[in-house]
């Protein structure tokens, strides 16, 4: 066999991963899934087969083609859009293990592991972080730039709003000052046009947003660009204002401009699914990963460095050079300095919120549809929002 993929000799088996249309390089769940699968294939000495999808029509075909071959320990489907396809193919191949990221169906066959994430919880943390940074700078707006308006993104928006509302309350209790932090939000209508993200973020910065959370895939890259330009124009190397990354630890993309990222550990989910399959513990059904399970969270500098380490070695060198660092330690130091632009009490506040969510004391509402997100948008306080989280 010739080919460009890594061909490991002597493997103990094969796993397959089917990406959704976003494909590799979405800086989001596809990339994260790849990291998890790659790591698992190395750790367990497995051959990894990757399949990209051109359009949504390819999902069934891709899954079916793999299932027909019948020699995969597990087939991982990345993305909620594959839910129906997985359901159908899994029913046809009951002996094949499947795992789907973000997909849920009450009637899913039991050879499917549905790995879900509580993005609302992670988003609440970055919401609190953003709002407190704004309040600390005496600002009254934060922003969120989203991709196409699809209900999955409501979870992010709702969680973020909750975090902001919680932070308003926290800030008042801490400083005795009333703050009202508005959330500027806009759905750019696309996941693939960085220029749109750039323009949206620029408009929000113009309108006073102090921290902008991007939940827009490829479009979001433009958000980072806009924030960096703002810093340059004001002769700053580091924020605030800041951008907040999403899904993976994106801080390394624009060090100094990105304060943190809302991590969604799809890699962990994928790795777990493979591990279970290898060890014979594979079970169908829902696996929901939240803050408590480490499935979502705010990126740490270590997370960012790990993400950076997942790049090929020469890419890393190249990147460091491009970013103007002599070594990885320099980068790390720089990231730490960036975080020091935000006072410790804010980081502690975020940790406090995390603790409360993990302990179950605070429940973050989860918007699934338009009505639910509307309800959250209209709610005045975090308590009111929490009422919405059944």
């Amino acid at each position: 066999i010739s080919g460009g993929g890594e061909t490991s000799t002597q493997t103990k088996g094969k796993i397959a991963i089917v990406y959704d249309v976003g494909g590799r390089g979405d800086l989001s769940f596809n990339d994260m899934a790849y990291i998890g699968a790659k790591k698992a294939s190395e750790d367990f000495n497995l051959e990894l087969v990757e399949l990209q999808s051109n359009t949504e029509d390819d999902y069934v075909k891709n899954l079916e083609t793999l299932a027909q071959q019948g020699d995969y320990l597990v087939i991982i489907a990345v993305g909620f859009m594959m839910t129906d396809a997985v359901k159908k193919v899994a029913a046809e191949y009951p002996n094949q293990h499947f795992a789907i990221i973000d997909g849920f169906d009450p009637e899913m066959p039991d050879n499917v592991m549905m790995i879900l994430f509580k993005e609302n919880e992670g988003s609440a943390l970055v919401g609190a972080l953003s709002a407190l940074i704004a309040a600390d700078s005496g600002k009254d707006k934060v922003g969120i730039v989203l991709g196409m308006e699809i209900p999955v993104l409501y979870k992010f928006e709702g969680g973020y709003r909750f975090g902001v509302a919680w932070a308003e309350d926290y800030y008042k209790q801490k400083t005795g000052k009333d703050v009202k932090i508005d959330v500027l939000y806009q759905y750019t209508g696309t996941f693939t046009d960085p220029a749109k993200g750039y323009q949206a973020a620029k408009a929000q910065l113009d309108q006073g947003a102090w921290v902008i959370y991007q939940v827009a895939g490829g479009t979001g890259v433009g958000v980072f660009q806009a924030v960096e330009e703002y810093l340059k124009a004001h002769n700053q190397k580091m924020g605030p204002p800041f951008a907040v990354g999403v899904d993976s630890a994106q801080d390394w993309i624009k060090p100094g401009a990105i304060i943190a990222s809302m991590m969604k550990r799809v890699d962990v989910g994928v790795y777990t699914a493979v591990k279970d399959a290898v060890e014979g513990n594979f079970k169908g059904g829902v696996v929901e990963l939240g803050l408590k399970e480490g499935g979502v969270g705010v990126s740490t500098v270590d997370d960012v460095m790990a993400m950076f380490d997942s790049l090929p070695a020469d890419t890393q060198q190249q990147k460091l050079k491009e970013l103007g660092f002599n070594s990885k330690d320099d980068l790390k130091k720089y990231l730490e300095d960036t975080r020091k632009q935000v006072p410790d009490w804010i980081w502690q506040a975020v940790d406090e919120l995390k603790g409360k969510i993990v302990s179950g004391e605070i429940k973050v509402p989860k918007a699934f549809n338009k009505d639910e997100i509307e309800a959250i948008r209209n709610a005045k306080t975090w308590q009111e929002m929490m009422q919405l989280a059944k």
Partner: protein
Amino acid sequence: MDLGSIISILITSLMAMVPIVLTSVGAVWSERAGVVSIGYEGVLLMSAFFGAIVAEVTGSGIMGLVGGIATGVIFGMLHGVLTVYLKGDHVIPGIGINLLAMGVVPFGILAYWGTAGQHQVAVTLWSWNTKYGKISPMIFVTIAISVITWWVLFKTPLGLRVRSVGENPEAADALGINVEKYRFWSTVYGHALAGLGGAYMSVAWLGVVQKTMSAGRGFIALANMVFSGWNPLVALLGGWLFGFFDALAAWLAPLHIIPGQFILMLPYIMTLIIVAGIIGKARPPKWDGRPYKRE
């Protein structure tokens, strides 16, 4: 909306207009010579990619733009050979070039930089960072190119010949004008400008290469070309107007006066209204898209 916002929207619209205007102006020239291409979308994407590589390799943003032009030139030559010399269909190669770009760029980003899907361009063109947003010298270059192209097209012997070749190649031929030569190099020029526009996106505007970053601008540019009535100056205005409504839509979006999707329609609806209400009939060059054969 205060003055600052207005200035900011203006800057945003001027920055956004560059790739559209450059592509439109290039397409105007090419179609004035009678060669249609719908491959500009792919050229934009590929030159954003190759332009960024050249910028990083040479360490010069300007060289990056030149790299984009070179990419445009190569695809212009391909298109020119197929349509002008081999007398082929003018539309099909563009579809192929667009497909090609959708393969080459994602593959190339991963193969060349090792990062999938996007790459932050390390070497970018100098720009002036103001409080209201970044101003690239390419704005002025674009305006200059539009004006010069207009001038050359309508005032000089070269322009006269190019237009004659697109209106009535037989007439031009009968006067000893080498129809194929003019058509071919016009095609190359058209694609070269699109190449410059593509490189601008990565090397000057957004500082990023992203696998889908052309995002329909090649097609918008074609609509703008028709809108302009095949006139580079009007194309400049049209491209800016489009950029303006695009920027305005981005600015209005956080206000949520109406559902977001309707705000996002703004540039398209405004274009339609302007075209239907004011511009009306636009007459393409008579031999636009038709191969010319002597026998």
